[in-house]
């Protein structure tokens, strides 16, 4: 369910960063207010446990495939939602930085989909009421299914609003939700089994569950989510072309038609050096749009190749120079 940086536009990535960053700050403040900062080593160790156990695959009965735990619901049940969000945030950041799983720009999206939705929506609204009525297994199963479905819905929304994949929303959603149904069941089953083990082996851990998050905070998160969704859909409908509005606000002239002293100078320089202006091939009549387009794509290809060549050359030169420097430290 990790979104990659390539799939996220600036507007979507930025909005969800703001939302998830705010949630992190809120959770952090909550822990401090409750005097729970002493729990930091416990959270660190449990984060490491979640990171490791995510790589332990188990066989899903009857399917021949295998699944693994994500763990937000488990953390919420053991530590409470604020601590669960902080731990998941740290795990997601490590995965983005070290394992190309997710990404830095998509970090806000991923924390929202896999941390905030399970801990602040599925946990209080599904898991806790069921668990209190004495159905811990059903609570874990249903809670995980709801969490994964919400997460899949959020992934589809974020991807489509980013507008970089061209996927139609309905088709993408119809693919995402059924795929995440068995994944949610497996997550729920794993969570239920782990919690049952903990209750039997170390009853005091399961009993020492901290006070649930207050309603005001949950309402705040939900309100912020609705607000962000509204803002995003407005942005998407008013600028269907790639959601560039964040940049368009800075450059009202539009980034496609840059204007300014630098650009005018570059344009003049280019007119003087090229045989025919407007990127057309010399020798062809630049009257038809087809001919003009061919000229543009040729110069675009040439320019792209030349840029890559320059970048690679710079890398090679720097590497070589550093090698000689290391070989002769006195130089």
């Amino acid at each position, binding site marked *: 369910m990790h979104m*990659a*940086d*390539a799939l996220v*536009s*600036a507007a979507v990535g930025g909005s969800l960063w703001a939302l998830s960053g705010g949630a*992190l700050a809120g959770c*952090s403040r909550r822990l*401090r207010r409750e005097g729970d*900062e*002493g729990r930091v*080593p416990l*959270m*660190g*160790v449990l*984060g*490491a*446990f979640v*990171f*490791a*156990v995510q790589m*332990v*695959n*188990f066989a899903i*009965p009857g399917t021949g495939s295998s699944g693994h735990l994500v763990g937000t619901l488990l953390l919420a049940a053991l530590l409470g939602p604020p601590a669960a969000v902080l731990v998941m945030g740290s795990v997601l950041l490590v995965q983005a*930085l*070290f394992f*190309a*799983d997710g*990404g*830095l720009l998509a970090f806000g999206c991923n924390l929202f989909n896999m941390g905030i939705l399970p801990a602040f929506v599925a946990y209080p609204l599904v898991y806790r009421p069921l668990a209190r009525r004495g159905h811990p297994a059903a609570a874990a199963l249903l809670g995980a299914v709801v969490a994964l479905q919400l997460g899949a819905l959020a992934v589809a929304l974020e991807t489509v609003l980013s507008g*970089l*994949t*061209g996927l139609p929303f309905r088709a993408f959603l119809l693919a995402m939700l059924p795929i995440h149904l068995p994944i949610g069941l497996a997550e729920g*089953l*794993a969570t239920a*089994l*782990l919690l049952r*083990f903990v209750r039997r082996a170390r009853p005091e*851990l399961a009993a020492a569950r901290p006070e649930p998050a207050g309603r005001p905070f949950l309402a705040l998160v939900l309100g912020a989510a609705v607000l962000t969704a509204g803002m995003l859909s407005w942005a998407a409908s008013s600028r269907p072309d*790639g959601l560039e509005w964040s*940049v368009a606000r800075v450059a009202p002239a539009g*980034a496609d038609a840059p204007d300014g002293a*630098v*650009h005018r100078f*570059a344009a003049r*320089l*280019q007119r003087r*050096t*090229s045989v025919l202006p407007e*990127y057309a091939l*010399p020798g062809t009549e630049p009257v038809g749009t087809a001919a003009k387009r061919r000229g543009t794509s040729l*110069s*675009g290809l*040439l*320019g*792209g190749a*030349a*840029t890559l060549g320059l*970048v690679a050359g*710079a890398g090679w030169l720097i590497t070589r120079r550093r090698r000689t420097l290391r070989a002769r430290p006195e130089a």
Partner: protein
Amino acid sequence: MPSLAAAILDLREMDRLARLDTPVHRLDPRAKVLATAAFLATLASFGPREVSALLPLALYPVVLAAFGEVPFGLLLRKALLGLPFILVLGAFLPWVDRIPVLQLGSFAVSGGWLAFASLLVRGLLAVTTATALVAVTGFGDLCAALDRLGAPRAFSQQLLFLHRYLFLAGEETGRALQARDLRACGRPLAMREYGAFAGHLLTRSWERAERVHAALRARGFDGVLPARAQSAFGTAAWGFLLGWSAFFLLCRWLALPALLGGLLAGGGL
């Protein structure tokens, strides 16, 4: 995600690279974090069909890696790890958008193929940059930089603790998995065994956390790990940050490859 053993090896390799001493390693970590944020914002702000205009941005990860002595093979390996997901989601593009927008000789390139190429370039650039950033900064310094830039204290502390225990938890889980594999003769871990398998690891982790906490408290721990020596945001850091930001703006507002191509096509023929 790679296997557990491979993940631990990767973490160790990145930590080793982060301990090197090069000009970019010596820069204030905050400058690198902010410049990378500017890089990502620039990358994300391009439209869905931009390909050649993205290419000059590759200079940033390449220069970071070259000065920081990060092997380019490592960057490429990481970039390939992130690709499958992008490939799956992007594979529909050429079918969704078939209107030709570009003519290459006798081939008409549709908007969908351009957008697909754009996704790939974005993915490569984002992953190589994130990898280069950790390799030339180190996770500890990165957390300290986030802390000084105003990240919530509990979160930066959580990151530091997580990094400390990743190796321990990873190796412990790896040993348990190996022990099970040796006795299971290739049988996959069944669902009903999972609770006991992962549960033992969980309770063991919890007990370790309690021991660690008691030991920390005995030494005066009050919820915040002591920070290491803090560097000042000097001239080099300002130069790095402002220079790269200016370059990113230049990339955003001038289509450098198109200009270069125009110069070459015009001047060369």
